[in-house]
């Protein structure tokens, strides 16, 4: 649990330093036709560089450093859910410049609008659960 807290903290501080906790900056990246701010590519580049090293280690060993089982996603099929879900997510991301991680950090900054976004996001996730349960998932 301590490790999880520290990881969340590091993740959040990374978002702050990179500028990604600022929706205006994220929208600057998504606005290709306007004055374009490519910073987000560098954030992903830095993160994937480190992530690649960690995940290739885990991929070979299939366990954590302490020998515990690793939980990796089992799905491999590119199906309609993946595609449609990503379309909806992209539309929401483009509307406000917020995705789940930066929204939590902006919430921690005490921004009332971040609270509104997070509440709506939780409602959306709850709606998904309701639909899934009704369908017997």
């Amino acid at each position, binding site marked *: 649990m301590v490790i999880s807290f520290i990881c969340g903290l590091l993740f959040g501080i990374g978002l702050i330093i990179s500028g990604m906790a600022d929706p205006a900056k994220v929208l600057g990246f*998504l606005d290709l036709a306007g004055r374009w701010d490519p910073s987000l590519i560098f954030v992903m580049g830095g993160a994937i560089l480190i992530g690649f090293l960690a995940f290739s280690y885990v991929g070979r060993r299939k366990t954590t450093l302490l020998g515990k089982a690793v939980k990796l996603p089992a799905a491999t099929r590119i199906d309609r859910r993946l595609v449609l879900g990503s379309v909806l997510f992209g539309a929401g991301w483009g509307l*406000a410049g917020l995705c789940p991680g930066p929204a939590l950090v902006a919430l921690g900054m005490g921004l009332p609008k971040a609270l509104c976004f997070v509440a709506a996001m939780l409602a959306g996730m709850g709606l998904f659960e309701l639909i899934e349960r009704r369908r017997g998932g």
Partner: protein
Amino acid sequence: MNIDYLHFTPWPAFAGGVLIGLAAAILILVNGRIAGISGIIGGLLRPIRGDVAWRLAFIAGMIFAPAIFGIFYVLPESRVDASWGILMAAGLLVGVGTRYGSGCTSGHGICGISRLSPRSIVATVIFMAVGFITVYLLRHL
């Protein structure tokens, strides 16, 4: 293409990215979990015994990040321009979309691409393309 050199910050962006990558690396190497924020939050809505505490701890770390960062440095400005109505629509879309698509910018965009997962690469290309289109429609039409 017209690059906004005034706001373009490659080095802080890269450094912040490395920190995000480090957080994802520690979480998978020590806890064996993927640092996908939508999945970490979403898992709380279908709670499984023994699988709740680490999620809450991670989310708490993210929410406390600005306060702890603020002890040592001045917090950069964070501006939400979208109206309340748009924010509610955006939040709903992000909530439903990330759960159906099994991930967001962190789970697919960072962890998934780091694992070279074809599903995550496809998801990232799609949500980024739709993000570009949405902003184009909002700002240039």
